[in-house]
């Protein structure tokens, strides 16, 4: 799985938490019958596209840098 290619567990956790917070990673994992790897890579691609980064589906250094920038979190519509 691309996220683990760097071998840095902390990066995986950073990416996971970020996607959970801003891209509904946890909820989509429950809702869709797909593996966490596929969902995470898809969420990474969405995030990279939004930030104008190279769309790789990997948590590469540029992506991790963008994730560490201060930002706004929009709560989802569900109660």
């Amino acid at each position, binding site marked *: 799985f691309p996220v683990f290619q760097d071998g840095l567990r902390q990066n995986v956790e950073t990416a996971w938490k970020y996607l959970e*917070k*801003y891209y509904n990673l946890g909820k989509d994992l429950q809702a869709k019958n797909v593996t966490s790897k596929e969902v995470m890579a898809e969420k990474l691609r969405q995030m990279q*596209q*939004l*930030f*104008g980064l190279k769309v790789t589906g990997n948590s590469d250094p540029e992506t991790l840098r*963008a994730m*560490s*920038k*201060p*930002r*706004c*979190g*929009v*709560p989802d*519509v569900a109660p």
Partner: protein
Amino acid sequence: YAITYNNPRWTKTHLTYSILNYTPYLPRAVVENAIERAFKVWSDVTPLTFERVFEEEGDIVFSFHRGDHGDNNPFDGPNYGLAHTFPPGPRLGGDVHYDLDETWTDNSENFNLFYVTAHELGHSLGLTHSRDIGALMFPSYTWYTEDFVLNQDDINRIQALYGPSPNPIQPTGATTPHPCDSHLTFDAITTFRGEVMFFKGRFYIRVNNFMPEAELNLIGILWPNLPGKLDAAYEVSMIDQVRYFKGNKVWAVREQSVLRGFPRDIHSFFGFPSNVTHIDAAVSEEETGKTYFFVDHMYWRYDENTRSMDSGYPRLTAEDFPGINDKVDDVFQKGENFYFFHQSVQHRFNLRIRRVDDSRDSSTWFNC
């Protein structure tokens, strides 16, 4: 346009707001002013009006919270998550929550309350995040400067929800440059440690041999103290400095810092006469240390070694640079050439044979 899922929007155009509590970092009046100005950002471009209420809860409630505050979206202490907002709707809908642990400011220090509030109000009104890096609704905090202008992308999206402003003069917003736009023009261009940087509005486009695509970002990300809409820029590579011009001011930059004592005025720093009020373009010839300043159809020459203006200037640009007949908008040196830009056309001026040997459209640098 990307609007929040299911497109929630307010069905009335007059909305009320209330402020539940405050940040300890700013006086109350400053917080109130920041919120008022943030509302004005949106009321200027839509039919929406906003009124503060004191005795009851407004449609939009502003409050500061620390950590878990019972809405399933806990804050995380200083930095990272700054604020969040609920889409339009009753009760929690439209409410803006700020992280109480952030250092909120009313200046360019992190984090400017007006800027964050203006962004959050976009969500309150039904907008989701934008993909346009220049938009107020871009998801990450970029940089705040006093010359804030709403982006056209923000205007288009909010007007798609609420319609245009009833004002007879329709507001227009700033637009984000697209490197592959063949009509793109630049405010300034300079080399920077082997790379070429193009400037337009609040943005730079960076070109380096190791990156296949040009990088577009905000000038403030690299140099927070530089203004946008620069006039000119040039690199003095022998002292590892880049100088930026706007009006009669010059900023000297090394790495990511504006050097102490800058900005200075161009008259005292270079020795320009007082009737020179701006610089259109500048370039320093690496081999000789001679810097050329282009103003209208004339140019001045400055010696970086002696730090003085050469005598006998200004001279007509077209006379000494045959083929450069128009006003020079931007210029930089690469190898044995000066690249002169006028509107969206560039001319390659060979310094050895002293003539223009190629002319193309200006976007050839971006691997489009």
